[in-house]
């Protein structure tokens, strides 16, 4: 349940839905350049781009991209053009960052082609990832040590005295 709760966040599993929502707003391949340029000017985040770990093209995105071509030809056209423009804008803005399309971007197109309503995208992700979650739970059983990191204190200097309610 904790893993499902984390996957729900738009910065994690909810990104597939966010990518599809962005493609819906863009609407067509012809509109991609205008929409993305405007969105970038307004400092909006492009959904479906960037990943903490991959520094080259996500291997899963590559496979899904090919599948998308036959699974959802219309949306694929919009998405391919969106990808091209978005990567160009991101590269121009931050040439030092290795920006790449992530798995959520092309997964949204493939799931659309498979006829999955977009509200169920994150649950489809969970249907797959539950095998990984459970594998990690089993693995952690062999190395039981409570995960309890430290924190850095940035609050008030310790030791101040509380005022009684009547004096506040």
């Amino acid at each position, binding site marked *: *349940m904790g893993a499902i709760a984390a996957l729900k966040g738009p910065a994690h599993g909810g990104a597939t839905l966010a990518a599809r929502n962005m493609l819906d707003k863009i609407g067509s391949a012809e509109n991609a350049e205008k929409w993305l340029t405007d969105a970038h000017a307004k400092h909006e985040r492009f959904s479906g781009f960037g990943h903490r770990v991959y520094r080259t093209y996500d291997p899963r995105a590559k496979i899904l991209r090919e599948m998308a071509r036959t699974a959802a030809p219309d949306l694929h056209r919009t998405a391919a053009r969106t990808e091209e423009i978005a990567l160009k804008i991101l590269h121009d803005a931050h040439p030092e960052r290795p920006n790449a399309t992530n798995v959520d971007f092309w997964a949204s197109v493939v799931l659309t082609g498979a006829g999955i309503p977009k509200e169920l995208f994150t649950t489809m992700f969970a249907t797959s990832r539950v095998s990984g979650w459970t594998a990690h739970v089993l693995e952690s059983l062999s190395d039981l040590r409570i995960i*309890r990191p430290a924190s850095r204190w940035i609050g008030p200097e*310790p030791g101040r005295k509380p005022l009684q309610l009547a004096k506040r």
Partner: protein
Amino acid sequence: MSTSTNSAYVPGLEGIIGAQTAISMVDGANGRLVYQGYVIADLAQQMSFEEVAYLLWKGQLPTKAQLDGLALELAASRTLTQAATIALDALPADTDPMDVLRSVVSIQGVEHRLSQPTVPLAIHAAASFPTILAMFYRRQLGLEPVTPRRDLGHAANYLYMMNGKEAGPEVVRALNTYLVLLADHGMNASTFTARVIASTESDLTSCLVGAIGALKGPAHGGAPSAVIEQLERIGTAENAEPWMRDARKQKIKFMGFGHRVYRVYDPRAKILKEMCRQMNPRFYELATRVEEVALKILHEEHPERPQSVNVEFYSAGVLQAIGLPKEFFTPTFAVSRVAGWSAHVLEQAAHNRIIRPQSEYIGPEPRKPVPLAERG
């Protein structure tokens, strides 16, 4: 082989800084717990749980008007949604109360969908925990739920809804102190869990459900009932040493000892121990003897390690004196800690960056899969 690792694997993330926080600080070297700059000993017996929850959420103690406002909001949120009530009634009577809490908190929160975490949502969630637990407890006993009272505070209402009658002022004060003491504790496992979930921009309910799941574990919040069970097995102060020496030979763990952070006496345990002395003399007599023997044995085994009782040890005696059944010890921990969890979720959401550490791959070198037909 590893994926662009830039630091060594640290089991349990011990010593790795998981967050910056102004909510609470565990000063392990000096045995101090600090909430927003206030040392716990200055809050524990003078403040209501509501005042401390406000402090954790807003960074300052409330004025009288602010506290009255909070009390009204809590009172308005002590009822369950229809879906949550139906779900609670559908659970088998022998369900673990932590599973009840995890499930019903989840359903109680579905109407908020993917809302941004806010203080009003934190109040709403915190208010519901005692109601959920009390309704389930009474259902186990075949009793009708009790409607909370607007004139009672959080601790008093919890006991009133459980027992159907108002608890005495001493008992209410003791539960209030327990709730204040346990409300937050640095980057403990359940709080870190809540912050990890918050970092994905998920909603408050999702964070709390994950935190409850972490608190359920015996290595975290699940220990106080285990303390009682072990003390029951020991039985008498005279039996402590023989039982415990024998237990050690069988590699049985002493429940309620050791903490990753404190190197001296846990300041919460100190307060709870004194409360046990006053409220639960039978427990106190046995527990202090067990503490003495356990520390002696642990010191003999590992003289280099600083050993001490942890908060669970004397919590058990206080919660027992309050009259809570031991299955409700860990859930009552959650009634308190929800204040800290939600404060951390608000803090994480305000300065967010997804928490996504790295892992060290220790599996086989990349290899080609053999098709099913060729695998024999």
